[in-house]
């Protein structure tokens, strides 16, 4: 569904992405992790052309995303993007946030857009908050509205850029559970995150990026239990808390927290 072919990108002299090749299948959930500044967010942002690339190509359903003949807005309408900082439109209610693009990009009638938005907000557990302004919502609620807003375009793939990094700890799990449900429903997901407990349980494959290079791509279980690369072992060791409790939420702890 998404294919990176030898993709490179530079900012001045720094190589942000270095000949990245990667294939993501339809319905697959891929978690991208790596130290800060490694290029993982940039990687995600190249998929809907928020960032240009210098060489190589990225194919979405066989279509060259950075090719000259592509209709940019049509591409973006098929690629949902969820930001670390939510980026809800503060002058619109939760419901209006989810209706704007379906009405003006897909040409949906207001009633149809409203019905679709309400259904998605209900799926996010936010049916009763539809009329709220973003500023009246908690961080976790805002991020769930942002996910509903992206899904309202019925995208072929959903990209999530550190969706829980800006949240207070007690709101992380409500957002992660929503994403897990999407993964189970067969949505194609690419998620940049530091929530390794989530990655282990939900991801089909985990990618480690370091200094713009793909270090390791492996099914979640083997990535965490038997990493092939020394760099992966170092990275995982660094994420372990110096204290007794692990930093990342283990799946068991995640469940305990929700129920």
């Amino acid at each position, binding site marked *: 569904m998404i294919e990176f072919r030898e993709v490179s990108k530079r900012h001045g002299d720094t190589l942000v992405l270095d000949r990245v090749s990667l294939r993501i299948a339809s319905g697959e959930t891929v978690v991208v992790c790596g130290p800060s500044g490694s290029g993982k967010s940039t990687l995600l942002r190249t998929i809907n052309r928020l960032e240009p690339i210098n060489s190589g190509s990225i194919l979405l359903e066989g279509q060259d995303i950075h090719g000259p003949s592509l209709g940019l807005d049509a591409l973006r309408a098929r690629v949902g993007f969820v930001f670390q900082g939510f980026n809800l439109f*503060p*002058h619109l209610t939760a419901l209006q946030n989810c209706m704007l693009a379906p009405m003006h990009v897909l040409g949906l009638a207001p009633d149809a857009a409203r019905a679709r938005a309400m259904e998605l907000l209900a799926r996010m557990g936010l049916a009763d908050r539809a009329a709220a302004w973003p500023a009246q919502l908690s961080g976790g609620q805002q991020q769930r509205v942002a996910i509903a807003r*992206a899904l309202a375009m019925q995208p072929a793939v959903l990209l999530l850029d550190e969706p829980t990094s800006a949240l207070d700890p007690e709101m992380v799990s409500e957002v992660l559970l929503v994403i897990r449900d999407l993964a189970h429903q067969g949505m194609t997901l690419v998620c940049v995150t530091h929530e390794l407990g989530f990655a282990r349980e939900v991801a089909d494959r985990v990618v480690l990026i370091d200094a713009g290079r793909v270090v390791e791509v492996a099914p979640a279980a083997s990535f965490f239990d038997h990493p092939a690369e020394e760099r992966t072992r170092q990275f995982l060791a660094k994420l372990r808390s110096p204290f007794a409790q692990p930093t990342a939420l283990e799946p068991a702890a995640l469940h305990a927290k929700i129920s």
Partner: protein
Amino acid sequence: MSSVLHDYWAYFLVGQYPNGPLGGLALTLLLGVSAVTLALPFGVLLGLARLSPWRALRWPVMALVYVVRGSPLLMVVFWAYFFMPGSSGRGNSQFATMLAALVVFNGAYLAEIVRSGLEALPRGQLEAARSLGLGYLQAMRHVVLPQALRNVLPSLVSQLVVTIKETSLGYIIGLTEFTFIATQVDSQLITHSTAVYTLVALTYFALCGGLSLLARRLDARSGPQAGPRPGGWAQARRAVPA
């Protein structure tokens, strides 16, 4: 002052109308409202063009804004009067001349206010809008401009009040607006200058002060929608130490 008002109120209000061209306060209001109505969209367009991704649009507009902001309004009025095609020496054309000068002059100032509002908005707003598939202009219209204009509303209003005051410069090119009428009345009465110009001052004060007050009311009432600041803008402003 009351005798001045008693004898000349009609002249102050409408000039020689209906026996001659419309003038006085009515003409001032007509000119002010027309200028504001045209300058605001013109300023928004110029502001957008200033930040446009297309250089061919950005540079000429930048030059226009710099030149106009670097000249006194009186110069712009003279330019319009002497150089605007078909503007001089014809019937009531002082009105068109003055209107053009006010729209261009205030459009340039409004453009900079609009630009500051656009630039102050977090980048993520445009990115989020574009990521949903909205085109550049759609994103501007539905996401960026509504927020940016709202954030610079106080500056916009003060510029619009300035525009009303600037209509008085029409006096220079013989436009029979309120100030022009006052000079006529003054030269007829000779000895009542204080009364005449006090009346002029009070009238402009009532007009512009009233507008500022109205704008402040609107501003405060938009509170609930303002979202980020529950309690409204008025409260947010008071919280800032003087």
